[in-house]
């Protein structure tokens, strides 16, 4: 009701809750090398999401029987701080956290040269300090930067961004409200140089055409975030401009 009213009063075009364009990302800030004790780390703000990621390894695998003789094992842990949501959430990992840890691993694995480190282990820990919709995407974006920061050789950066449908329109990078109240949410992770999708999930209801639109829009968003990841890494290593 109130939504309709404001629309007729302003006589403006369709508007998102936070006033963004349908294909506009939330403001993003990425920093790398933020944790002195980790081998690699990064911090991301994507809208009001605040996520810090630490990478440890490659190192010895504990317990040993989980090591693989021909490649490194990537372990991911996605975890939300009790104060990251309203109301407070239990610090014990939920089933959702476990599933996200798994899809994060599947999203990152294709990019890493795991074959170079047999019998070893790479641990990626993502801690969500504040959640505002799209935490799995933001975590993947930060994790990639942290992996590079740890000096782990990679085929490409993994970039992640969601698109979805809210109020009948296909939109990019859903915020918490749009995620909960919208018709569908399609998180995608993508390797821009290799043109490979490494994470694809979806909830809600979409026609085939809308789904394809969402996937393409997500990838557009990914391409923008890719540049920000590169900037963050260049900044860390003091590279102002790319040498020509």
């Amino acid at each position: 009701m109130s939504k309709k009213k404001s629309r007729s009063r302003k006589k403006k075009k369709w508007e998102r809750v936070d006033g963004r364009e349908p294909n506009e990302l939330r403001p993003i800030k990425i920093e790398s090398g933020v944790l002195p004790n980790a081998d690699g780390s990064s911090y991301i703000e994507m809208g009001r999401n605040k996520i810090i990621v630490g990478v440890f390894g490659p190192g010895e695998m504990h317990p040993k029987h989980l090591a693989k003789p021909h490649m490194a094992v990537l372990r991911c842990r996605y975890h939300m701080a009790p104060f990251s949501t309203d109301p407070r959430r239990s610090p014990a990992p939920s089933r959702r956290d476990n599933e996200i840890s798994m899809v994060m691993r599947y999203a990152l694995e294709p990019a890493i040269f795991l074959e170079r480190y047999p019998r070893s282990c790479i641990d990626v820990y993502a801690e969500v300090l504040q959640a505002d919709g799209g935490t799995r995407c933001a975590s993947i974006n930060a994790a990639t930067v942290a992996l590079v920061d740890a000096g782990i050789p990679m085929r490409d950066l993994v970039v992640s961004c969601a698109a979805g449908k809210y109020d009948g329109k296909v939109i990019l990078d859903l915020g918490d409200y749009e995620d909960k109240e919208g018709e569908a949410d399609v998180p995608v992770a993508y390797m821009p140089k290799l043109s490979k999708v490494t994470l694809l999930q979806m909830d809600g209801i979409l026609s085939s055409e809308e789904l394809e639109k969402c996937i393409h829009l997500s990838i557009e968003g990914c391409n923008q975030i890719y540049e920000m990841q590169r900037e963050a890494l260049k900044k860390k290593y003091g590279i102002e401009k790319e040498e020509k």
Partner: protein
Amino acid sequence: MSPRHGIVPRLKRKKIQEAIGSGKRMDGRELDDYREIVVKLGVIEKAEGSAEVFLGDTRVIVGVKIKCGAPFEDTPDEGVIICNAEFVPIASPNFEPGPPREESIELARVVDRGLRSAEVVDFSKLAIVPGKHVYVINIDIYILNYAGNLIDASAIAALAALRETMKPIYKVKDGEILLTDKKEPLKAEKMPVAVTMVKIGDSIVLDPSADEEEVMDARLTMTVDEDGNICTIQKSGSYGLTLEEIEKALNIAVEKAPGIRSKITGND
């Protein structure tokens, strides 16, 4: 050749790929063939709804139990659905007793998302005393034999079980909730169906067997409702997919879903 598989899976993969290359899979199926689907309803009399599904040698039972309980804080006027999967040790030499594995959490959540997104059950009609007492529907997926593609088998079983579920009727007397001996259908009318395929090399095969799952590059599940809309997607596996592969998978899913759906409605 995929360097990410151990030596035995690598040999297995070679055989499987050769078979796929010749157009027939190891078990003689075409690339887009499902194994035979058999649905049995009402296999557990003590459950409010139940179904057993055979998908080739994969065998799954879903039992639906309903009780009266408290609603979630953020949805006080709606019923609750809880989906859970048990990988019991009898189903495979690789399954062990203990806390739920990643795969079982994923299975339960993908089935749950399919039912939820398609709005199979109208949650708003499941309040007994809004804000206080609502129907709590437990959907328990029990794997009896693992032979690949647990998601599709479980999604069929869960939907078939919900469709024949009778919910007990409660009456409210002086603020107390009393169970009557009457029951009424839960009314699950929407019909989301999961279609799972795996990518092995450059090929996409439907309804993967256990061997095919072991050597796959990636797996993609798409849940399709009766109007041809997509309600859930889940990608897993350690390799990426191209946009063309995703588009192809989408078309296959939309095309195959009605055939699977008819196996469920055929029982009604």
